């Protein structure tokens, strides 16, 4: 317990003893079995592991989309597992951005409108929302397609619009689940670069789930999951000042 208390320092997300099981017919599948980790701001953290090992489930708990059966998630020192649905929605609105495997764009909206839409709910004026949306689209290099609807965009372009939608909120936390799995090399690299840049330039906590080697190589920190636990973690070569932060 004491060891974990130390680990909280400098971590924008702290998870303690997360457990999650799913009922599959009569059988209960234990997906997470007491995971404790800390995620730092300003870097790109990657969770990798074999298919079905519980990566996405862990991400959903850390990002306040789902509640754990046991354990706590502290974000900026606040226990989000104690929040009600309304407060959770509010929390996500103000602090988190998501990039999902599917692009999940509305067929009826232009790229600009897709990005602008959530900003309206943040209480921004139309003008502010438009400006921010344009900035976000510039960040993902999509300014030339602002008036296009999803039907006219390529997969990579759609993912970049989805990314701009998440970034435009200027979230402190950015969560991505297999953001590159549907994309080819070039497009995948673009996405990785953007995730990096967001972490560096805005000090955002970027947590990403992937088994894409391109991503693993360029992450600041990699957490390898197996059997419902974080097995080992390392910092790939190129990040110079990386001192390991083992959980176990």
């Amino acid at each position: 317990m004491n060891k974990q208390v130390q680990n909280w320092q400098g971590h924008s997300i702290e998870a303690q003893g997360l457990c999650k099981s799913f009922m599959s017919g009569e059988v209960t599948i234990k997906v997470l079995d007491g995971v404790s980790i800390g995620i730092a701001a300003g870097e790109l953290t990657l969770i990798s592991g074999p298919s079905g090992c519980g990566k996405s489930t862990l991400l959903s708990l850390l990002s306040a989309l789902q509640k754990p059966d046991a354990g706590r998630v502290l974000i900026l020192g606040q226990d989000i597992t104690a929040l009600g649905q309304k407060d959770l929605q509010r929390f996500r609105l103000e602090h988190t951005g998501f990039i999902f495997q599917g692009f999940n764009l509305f067929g009826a909206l232009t790229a600009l409108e897709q990005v602008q839409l959530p900003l309206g709910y943040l209480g921004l004026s139309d003008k502010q929302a438009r400006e921010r949306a344009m900035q976000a689209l510039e960040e993902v290099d999509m300014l030339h397609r602002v008036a296009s609807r999803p039907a006219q965009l390529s997969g990579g372009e759609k993912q970049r619009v989805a990314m701009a939608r998440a970034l435009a909120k200027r979230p402190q936390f950015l969560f991505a689940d297999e953001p590159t799995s549907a994309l080819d090399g070039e497009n995948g690299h673009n996405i990785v670069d953007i995730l990096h840049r967001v972490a560096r330039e805005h000090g955002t906590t970027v947590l990403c789930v992937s088994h894409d080697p391109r991503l693993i190589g360029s992450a600041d920190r990699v957490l390898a999951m197996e059997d419902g636990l974080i097995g080992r973690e390392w910092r790939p070569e190129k990040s110079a000042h990386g001192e390991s932060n083992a959980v176990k």
Partner: protein
Amino acid sequence: MISLARQSLIHEWRKFLPAVMAVGFSGLLLLVQAALVLGIFGSAAVYVTRSSADVWVGYPGTQSVNFGRSIGGDVAMRLHLDPGIAAVEPYVWVEGDWRGRDDTQGAASVFVSGINTSPGAMMFSQVLPDDLRLRLREPGAVIVDRADLEQLNAGVGGEAWINGRLVHVIGVVDGLRGLGGVNVLASLDSARMLDTSNASPGSATYFVAKLRDPAEIESVRVRIKPESAFGPFEVWSADEFASRSQRYWLFDTGAGVAVLFMAVIVFVVGAVITSQSLLALVVASAREYATLNALGVSFTSLARVLVEQSLWVGAIGLVISALFGAALLWLAGHQGVPADMNPVVAIACAVLVMGLAFVSGLVATRGLWRADPAMLLR
């Protein structure tokens, strides 16, 4: 603020077509039904609504024009004496059996209206031109509605029997069709001749009157209190008596309940179909809605989007049903089908249609349960 509801409707209107059609069709059904009810039950009072009289005087408690009973001629005297009254006319109502000349078709039930034949008289002034009215003075001359000729097996210039007396059709008019029987216009004398009961001379089924100032109806009514000296009678304004007759047919015959029942069924069926097609749309876009929720847009806000969408669907459906409804009403008017519309009923239909759309939208928000953002992470 970007309106997801409106953008979706504009750019993906094809997807909304089933819902719009469901609303439009329900609206059209409601509208047509209301128009027919108004037309059919409105015709229970053609005697009042097609005449220019301000006041109707008849037997106390008469529920509907066709239930009139004879009142004494002295009542007309009393009316004449009142300073607020400009003109008085007797109106004689006789029920009869119409038999065609060759008598192969059996009898048709007719309501003979015995009316004043002076030019400018009040009864049926809106359908009967003065030249035709004058010609009713010929003994046995009658006028019927053009659309009734076929049912009566008669033609202009032809002869027939009413209650065993010979009559001849001298002309036809439009807008005379009634409820429960075929309306036949005749002079007062002809009508009395056809009357098989022996009413006392000078009596009539109603006396109708024109006021010097139609706004003075209340003071006239107060002055002309039924007095035993003149026998029993009751005074109604024309509007009162018309709606009294319509209400009788609509409510006391049970027709109103049937109509209401139909309206409820149309509403429910319309709402079920509309909500199901809206629900299918929500479920189809569940991942997109879930993404918005993951980004923090509350379920309440998403539900609001859906309701806004359903209200737009309702408004478009309403416009469609109004256009088709107007076309059908126009057609009905040309085909002699009794159909009518008034602003109050039209607004009521519109409110029902929007209500239907609103309810459907609320039901469709159930689809948001599928939009659990956790499903996006697998």
